[in-house]
């Protein structure tokens, strides 16, 4: 715990992002998401479910809240470990982005792709209107 507080104190405020369930810190030069759990509420669960467009039954919210709390407890255990002097990672594999030459190799396959679309018209995919 002590080591985490020491890390916290050295963080500039601007490199902190308050998410729905956590406060995230950037420990650049590489990004590392440093979790600082705040107690999760039923509202948080509903909010996250809405943002992710996941339909959940209202009777199950308490169970999800408890589950997510347990996951965050696990993260909290990891937070106990001092990470000072360890270079943060943005990707679990030690590899770099491969670059592609700027050439067009895709051809038009609209008919094929639209054969699985529920509704199309004049080449457009049709969806329920989002703006009235």
């Amino acid at each position, binding site marked *: 715990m002590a080591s985490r507080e020491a890390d916290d104190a050295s963080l500039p405020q601007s490199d902190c*992002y308050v*998410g*729905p369930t956590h406060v995230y810190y*950037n420990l*650049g*030069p*590489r*990004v590392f*998401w440093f979790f600082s759990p705040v107690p999760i509420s039923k509202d948080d669960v509903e*909010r996250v479910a809405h*943002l*992710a*467009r996941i339909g959940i039954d209202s009777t199950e919210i308490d169970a999800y809240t408890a589950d997510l709390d347990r996951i965050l407890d696990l993260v909290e255990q990891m937070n106990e470990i001092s990470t000072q002097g360890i270079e943060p990672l*943005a*990707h*679990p*594999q030690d*590899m*770099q*982005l*491969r*670059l*592609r*030459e*700027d*050439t*067009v*190799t*895709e051809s*038009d*396959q*609209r008919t094929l*792709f*639209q054969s699985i679309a529920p*509704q199309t*018209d*004049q*080449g*457009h*995919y*049709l*969806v*329920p*209107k*989002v*703006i009235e």
Partner: protein
Amino acid sequence: MNEWEIVIGLEVHVQLNTKSKIFSPTATTYGAPANTQASAVDLALPGVLPVINREAVVKAICFGMAVGGTIEPHSIFARKNYFYPDLPKGYQISQFELPIVSGGSIRFEVGDTHHDIRLVRAHLEEDAGKSVHDAFGRLSGIDLNRAGTPLLEVVTEPDMRSPAEAVAYLRTLHTLVRYLDICDGNLQEGSFRCDANVSIRPHGQTTLGTRTELKNINSFRFVEQALDYEIDRQIAVVENGGAIAQETRLYDADQGNTRPMRSKEEAHDYRYFPDPDLPPLLIGDDLLEEARAALPELPDNRQARFVSEYGLTVAESRQLTRDRDLADFFESAVVAAAGDASGVANWMGGEMAAALNREQCSLEDVPITPAMLGELVVLINNGTISGRMAKTVFDALWQGNGSAQEIVDLRGLTQISDADSLEKIVQAVLKQCPSQAAQYQAGETKVLGFLVGQVMKMTEGKANPQKVNEIFKRHLDG
């Protein structure tokens, strides 16, 4: 009114002019039939993976170098999560922490005042598709041709203090990206799109007021109008004892006002996280070298050089360097004009600028080439044609009727400069108009214009007017 200080920051989406998309080898051509340039990657079909376009990276580096920013040797792509029908993946690949370019600045002048607008960052991201809300009855149509088009989002500090300054910044940035050949700059096609953050505060206050964000602005003129409207609105709210709500507002060009977006549309909690599909982008010496080699002479340097090398005025030089094509045209034409820079500048700033403006077209749309304009200047300078004939020749060049020499030959426009021929004509005119000659000798020298006019009439405008003047004076002053 003057007790309020205006604070403006801008975010510009610069569409990079690559052949293929940022994460898929699909064409980016504008105006193709709906969804004919939307591949499996762009549609987010299962199992696809993004692979980044090297050229988009090089163009972003070029921009960073040109604005004096820091090129991040190690940058990261993140997922920006939100749901909208024209974003098939449910997230936009963007950069959040560690963008490819940080810092740098854009410099320009408004009148005699120098401005230096600091940039926060410039990051790479993919564009979304387009929604069509009014053509399919109770449904919306989705065209994903634009999905995945590379964008460079350029974000400033809140450094601008007036709508005019914001517009000047945009024009400077627009010129720069066209110079760098990283963007076609076409505003109508959405290649250069602007969002503005604006707030007001009492003069002397150092903390920022609550800002609103204006979206949906697609011309320089609208940026100024939208900001003017929004600033007046904010001042009215505050002076009537109200408070500004932090919100996103849409500019309505037809009504000339701004209105808030519905809260549902702006409910953003993007939950950024590093995209597991894309490992870090490492920029090594090879990419830096490639970008440096692609970097042209920048507008500021070129403007200064036009003054020192060609002896142009600052105003002329600014006009000629505001567009890279125009500046290239000028330099080629000067070579063709045997080095007469001021002659070329006069034509480009006069007849040519007027014609381009009149027909609302750009250089690439007109048949006139630097070689043609240069030849025209040479023909004037060596006395083959007069200034007045040159205008006729210019119009013919503009119509695409051939080279300057061809037009001169075809229309028999060669100027009569030969002293013997002119002498005979002048003597004939003096004989016909003895009273005017007497008037001149009595001190009414203005009548010379009439006499020269008679010569021009007899020669169908082909006589060299300077020479004719000289000959008359020799006869009459003597």
